[in-house]
């Protein structure tokens, strides 16, 4: 499967493929938004303010998921020194950062009408903010360290240490008392979201994943070209 990331396959991705993906993404997001904003019901407690969930939750999933890939990739990078690995993680990082920011901002907008407050320093919110800082550190490392190998090493360490934060984020609502409620979608039990609300949530999630894929492919292709042209100071 790793073969799919090799230069030959990626560099052959042309504008046509990207444009098809963009059209697919627009379609899915429009469907998701129609469902989220109009067709799905209001919540029995929160009323219409629940609709922020359809952006907040998928963003959070993707923010964590991308860092999990970056962290795991960093481990493989340091152990096996696979040349394309840092290019992959480098191409994912900006999207992950944006989705972390979206998660925090939409969460805050959701918190004010429901909890009564924009922000609290509970374990869930604080650890998400820490994730944002890890993403920033990762991006800044690649941006400001001119030597490729040095940036690679430092960013990989950042990715690996940040990996420890991920289970803390996920289980913060179970391990400690937090204002943020516990998980509605888990691997081990049935979702506590009614299906009329779960479906738009999943549609939005798929749409945002397609978006992440598009951005990743565009950035990764650029990184591969730069790498081949030896433009990154190795």
């Amino acid at each position: 499967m790793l073969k799919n990331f090799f230069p030959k396959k990626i560099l052959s991705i042309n504008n046509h493929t990207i444009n098809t993906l963009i059209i697919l993404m627009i379609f899915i997001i429009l469907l998701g938004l129609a469902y989220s904003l109009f067709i799905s019901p209001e919540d029995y407690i929160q009323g219409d303010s629940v609709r922020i969930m359809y952006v907040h939750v998928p963003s959070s999933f993707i923010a964590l998921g991308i860092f999990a890939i970056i962290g795991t990739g960093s481990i493989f990078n340091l152990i096996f020194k696979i040349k394309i690995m840092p290019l992959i993680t480098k191409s994912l990082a900006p999207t992950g950062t944006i989705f972390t920011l979206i998660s925090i901002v939409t969460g805050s907008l959701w918190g004010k009408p429901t909890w009564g407050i924009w922000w609290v320093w509970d374990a869930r919110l604080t650890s998400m903010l820490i994730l944002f800082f890890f993403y920033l550190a990762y991006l800044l490392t690649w941006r400001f360290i001119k030597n490729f190998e040095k940036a690679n090493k430092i960013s990989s360490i950042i990715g690996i240490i940040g990996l420890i934060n991920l289970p803390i984020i996920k289980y913060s609502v179970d391990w400690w008392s937090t204002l943020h409620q516990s998980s509605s979608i888990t691997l081990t039990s049935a979702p506590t979201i009614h299906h009329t609300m779960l479906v738009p949530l999943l549609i939005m999630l798929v749409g945002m994943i397609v978006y992440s894929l598009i951005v990743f492919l565009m950035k990764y292709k650029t990184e591969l070209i730069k790498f081949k042209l030896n433009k990154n100071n190795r």
Partner: protein
Amino acid sequence: MFNKRVKSRIFFLSSLIFIAGLIIFFTLKSLEDNVVYFFSPTEIKNKSNISFNKKIRIGGLVKTGSINKEGNIINFIITDLKNEIIVSYTGLVPNLFSEGKGVVAEGKLNDKKYFIANKILAKHDENYMPPEVSEALEKSN
């Protein structure tokens, strides 16, 4: 694939992650009182090192039938179904604050049974459903 250099890198990385994990674990453990966002009434009851002048947060459910408004002052009871604390608060409460629902009160303890809050937050659980489904569930119960 797993030659000597790779093996030594694996070992170095695993030890690094393990030690970092230990450090974080013990840091969080020792900061536990600050990491939890609120205490339950039972935890307050069992707590030995309570200071009655420190800002503290108590969370639980608003006991049904306990909300009592006297002008600007709201009195109610926070329960975790095992223990209770009486809370007194002056000011506006969030929209979602209601009986039988989750609440977090921030303020100072007068004594182990009586709490003066200066901030009230509503806490909701992880269940999401349309109003009709909720009514149907209530009817069948």
